């Protein structure tokens, strides 16, 4: 490298002889310097990127209410015992119904509907089809599905949602707030009924208050068909009314034609669930916020709920965390190191108090990991995800009471506190004049009251991908030199076209990746019932045969082709790295978490990839070690392998062919939820991985 730099300088002096020497601009000098020392800098930057990711929990800031209008907790709760007794009565009636009747029918819906209308709400029922999401390659990013109503619908299975609307007495009717309580109307559990009790308590209050400025919609969804689907069906109907009368409406005893009612634009939505007993002394409130493709609701909504739950109602608030990380010893050691460094820094200067206790660090990183994982997966963590598709801020609140569901004495207090929490949140949202916009939309949570904003976490990613363009440039220069030396023919010395062969190969493999991404759609169209395992085998064989065909028809593409046709591996690597860089940067805009995790895998693989043959021939420890590393990284980098390893990390070991089935199911869920992660795996990760494989077996 140093010699090359000297060469450059010599060149400059030569070209400039006679005329006064022009000194290149500092930024150009810096660029040349970085490219010249790219191996050192790539190691430094990658290490810094990983370190930055590790210290993110230290950089988390406390959340604060950014929007002035919200004013959470400034108003006194107006809930009375009468409201609570309304809620308790509904729960009692539902329980009595279950004692005397057996499933089927819409009696429970009608019972809830009667309660709603007694409180003064407009009530209606909505029927929907429980059809699942179908993979359609064209529907990625195309917005919410228009679940086309099939003409030949059967009345065999359909769900019925109940919704009640309270109109704001002096409001303008342009906005509304939605409360969702999923309930299984056929075999409803005791805990689920409690969520109905809380909401009913609240609804009873809201029906008589004078301060509403937005309409309130209480939606009880039929959770027989999952949590998500009923909400999505209701939202579709709410936002895009169909004027075709479906046969579904006439099914059963309940005729729901022409009864669907709407309120204004949905300002915010809260999904309430009650389940399981809290293992802590207090009632536990879990907040789920991740929607599809790592989209998050505005941080203010989480802040309001967290503030009211902690400071007013005394809930223990938590967000999801990766439990297995809590007991990991290496993370604990890192935490202790950071703690020690923090303490040391504090002794040097009392103003530097960035250190946090190791236990906090452990908690923070476990939460951060979960936050990253849920966002990267791109699958919503609850029914609130359906709202995000319509740009509505929504979260799911899961309350776990500390008492068994049949305890009458505790129930009153529980209803009161749960309903007060919701009342406070609704009153805050009710105060809003505009959509949520003040606080962050791009953030990662490290605890319910701590967050890392986009400006901070992007640093880790930027450091991680920074070596890619540097290494690409330096490899390109190197490769060009090698080619110039090997061929003396001046016509072939068109320097700027050296990369074209390599680019052809890279493009071919990316095209292959695109086709492989679309394959599952066609495999799904194959008639007959197939197990996920068979489907994954079909997919695997088709993909590998396609790969072989590509190698066969495009000369110079294959690593097994003769040396004469093969491109220079350095140029190939340079173009590969450029492609990976572009792919990662694009992905970081769509879904940061995917790009971050992808970069952690792809960047070392791309940087380490080098032909294995010369290394074996040279028999030097250093090159052998490099070859070994790149092989290990490539093995881990294979998507199926990575899936198996991450499963293993989470404590579910799967081996053999069942792994294929699992992998297929996982991918199926990805595309069913229209996760961009699926596209990333197919169109960025897989081609780059294949290219690295080509480099590994390059016959140079």
């Amino acid at each position: 490298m140093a010699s090359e730099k000297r060469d450059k300088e010599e060149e400059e002096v030569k070209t400039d002889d006679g005329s006064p020497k022009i000194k290149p601009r500092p930024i150009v000098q810096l660029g040349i310097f970085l490219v010249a020392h790219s191996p050192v800098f790539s190691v430094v930057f990658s290490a810094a990127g990983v370190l930055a990711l590790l210290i993110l929990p230290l950089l988390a800031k406390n959340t604060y209410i950014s929007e002035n209008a919200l004013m959470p907790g400034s108003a006194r709760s107006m809930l009375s015992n009468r409201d609570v007794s309304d809620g308790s009565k509904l729960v009692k009636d539902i329980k009595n119904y279950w004692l005397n009747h057996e499933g089927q029918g819409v009696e429970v819906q009608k019972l809830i509907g009667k309660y709603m209308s007694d409180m003064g709400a407009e009530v209606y029922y909505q029927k929907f089809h429980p059809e699942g999401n179908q993979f359609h390659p064209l529907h990625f990013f195309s917005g919410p599905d228009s679940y086309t109503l099939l003409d030949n619908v059967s009345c065999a299975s359909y769900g019925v949602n109940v919704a009640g609307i309270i109109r704001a007495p002096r409001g303008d009717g342009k906005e509304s707030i939605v409360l969702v309580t999923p309930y299984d109307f056929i075999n409803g559990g005791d805990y689920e009924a409690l969520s109905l009790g809380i909401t009913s308590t609240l609804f009873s209050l809201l029906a008589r208050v004078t301060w509403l400025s937005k309409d309130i919609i209480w939606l009880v969804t039929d959770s027989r068909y999952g949590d998500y689907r009923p909400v999505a069906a209701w939202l579709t109907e709410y936002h895009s009314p169909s004027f075709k009368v479906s046969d579904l409406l006439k099914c059963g005893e309940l005729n729901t034609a022409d009864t669907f009612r709407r309120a204004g634009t949905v300002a915010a939505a809260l999904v309430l669930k009650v389940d399981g007993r809290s293992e802590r002394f207090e009632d536990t409130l879990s907040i789920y916020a991740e929607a599809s493709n790592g989209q998050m609701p505005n941080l203010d909504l989480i802040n309001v709920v967290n503030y009211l739950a902690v400071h007013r109602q005394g809930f223990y608030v938590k967000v999801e965390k990766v439990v297995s990380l809590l007991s990991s010893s290496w993370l604990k050691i890192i935490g202790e190191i950071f703690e020690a460094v923090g303490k040391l820094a504090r002794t040097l200067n009392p103003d530097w108090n960035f250190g946090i206790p190791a236990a906090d660090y452990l908690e923070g990183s476990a939460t951060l990991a979960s936050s990253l994982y849920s966002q990267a997966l791109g699958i919503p963590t609850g029914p609130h995800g359906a709202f995000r598709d319509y740009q509505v801020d929504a979260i799911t609140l899961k309350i776990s009471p500390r008492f068994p569901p049949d305890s009458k004495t505790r129930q009153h207090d529980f209803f009161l506190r749960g309903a007060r929490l919701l009342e406070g949140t609704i009153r805050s949202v009710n105060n809003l004049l505009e959509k949520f916009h003040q606080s962050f939309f791009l953030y990662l949570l490290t605890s319910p009251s701590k967050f890392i904003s986009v400006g901070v976490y992007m640093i880790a990613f930027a450091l991680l991908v920074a070596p890619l363009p540097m290494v690409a440039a330096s490899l390109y220069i190197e490769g060009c030199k090698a080619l110039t030396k090997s061929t003396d023919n001046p016509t072939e010395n068109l320097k700027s076209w050296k990369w074209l062969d390599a680019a052809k190969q890279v493009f071919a493999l990316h095209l292959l990746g695109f086709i492989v991404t679309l394959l599952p759609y066609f495999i799904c169209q194959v008639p007959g019932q197939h197990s996920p395992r068979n489907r994954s085998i079909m997919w695997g064989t088709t993909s590998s045969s396609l790969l072989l065909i590509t190698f066969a028809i495009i000369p110079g593409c294959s690593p097994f082709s003769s040396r004469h046709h093969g491109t220079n591996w350095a140029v190939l690597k340079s173009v590969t790295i450029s492609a990976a860089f572009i792919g990662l940067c694009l992905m970081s805009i769509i879904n940061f978490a995917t790009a971050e995790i992808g970069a952690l895998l792809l960047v070392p693989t791309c940087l380490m990839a080098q032909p294995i043959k010369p290394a074996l021939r040279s028999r030097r420890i250093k090159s052998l070690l490099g070859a070994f590393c790149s092989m290990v990284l490539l093995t881990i980098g294979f998507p199926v392998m990575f899936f198996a390893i991450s499963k293993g990390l989470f404590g579910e070991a799967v081996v053999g062919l069942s792994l294929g089935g699992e992998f297929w199911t996982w991918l199926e869920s990805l595309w069913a939820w229209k996760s961009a992660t699926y596209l990333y795996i197919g169109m960025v990760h897989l081609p780059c991985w294949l290219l690295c494989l080509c480099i590994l077996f390059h016959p140079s």
Partner: protein
Amino acid sequence: MKVLTLVMLLCYSFAFSSGDTTIHTNNWAVLVCTSRFWFNYRHMANTLSLYRTVKRLGIPDERIILMLADDMACNARNEYPAQVFNNENHKLNLYGDNVEVDYRGYEVTVENFLRVLTGRHENAVPRSKRLLSDEGSHILLYMTGHGGDEFLKFQDAEELQSHDLADAVKQMKEKRRFKELMIMVDTCQAATLFNQLQSPDVLAIGSSLKGENSYSHHLDSDVGVSVVDRFTYYTLAFFERLNIYDNASLNSLFRSYDPKLLMSTAYYRTDLYQPHLAEVPVTNFFGSVMETLHTDSVYKAFSSKTSNNKINSEMPLNQLSEHDELQKANIQNDELKTEKQKCPYTQMRVDLHKKLEKLENVDTVVNLGIAVMLLVVMVSSSLL
């Protein structure tokens, strides 16, 4: 006659050329709430409280320009529809029957505010929306909202800068739109708004110094918002103890602000204002307390020499003598004026009447008249 009017005009202009000698004849108040939105409820409550106070102390509604940027009373979020309170005890509804809002909602803009102060209105603007003050007016200008360093936010959309305010005040002074002006501002960094003021006879008081915030006093947990700001709250507390006859001085008002209670430092700018604050009663600005002049006859304005002397008793002696002479001249002019000032139509009627009375044989006059009329008709018809 012409000479006489000229003399009169000369006397008048001479009398008023020395501005300080003008008598305080009336009081005006311009009360401005500049912020919208429900969470700024307290700003409207502040302004309405001041409105109530100055009204109670005697400024009539037609001399109060009330500008409210939002209507909290009718906001859907208000738990007490059509009512506004400045205290959580809810004893006093500030938005009762007799509230005349002159500028409301989006009418409250920097442009309209400056138009009100400078008096440059379009023709269609009704008198009730104009500040029709004159050189004898004491004006109270009260503003509240969100402010910063040398600006005050209007409606979340515009800003009134300290330069704008100073310019408007200067124009007012040059147009003789006030005798004395008191500006009271309750915003964050209120003191900075007065930085550019230069015009004389302006007294300014702000709730906080540069770099300080003005805080709200308390939260009404039924309404769910803060209902009054600290500075205004303690101002009102001071005025609630007063009635129209009290003689409390501005000094006592200014001394009543305790920085600990205010959580900010109230700032007074007195360098432009000559009278000693301890001798100026607060009702000079916050009320409308006039000297009542007893007169013997109903229509003889300006004729009572004794009462005029009484008003001017505080003036220095040398000015007094000069003033006395002027007044004598004035009075004489007035008498002359009243003699001459009879309606010409009435005069003509009276003359006619007198002439008619002199006539003895009315019948002949009538007959003659008819004959003349006939003649005229004949001539005119033949001509046509």
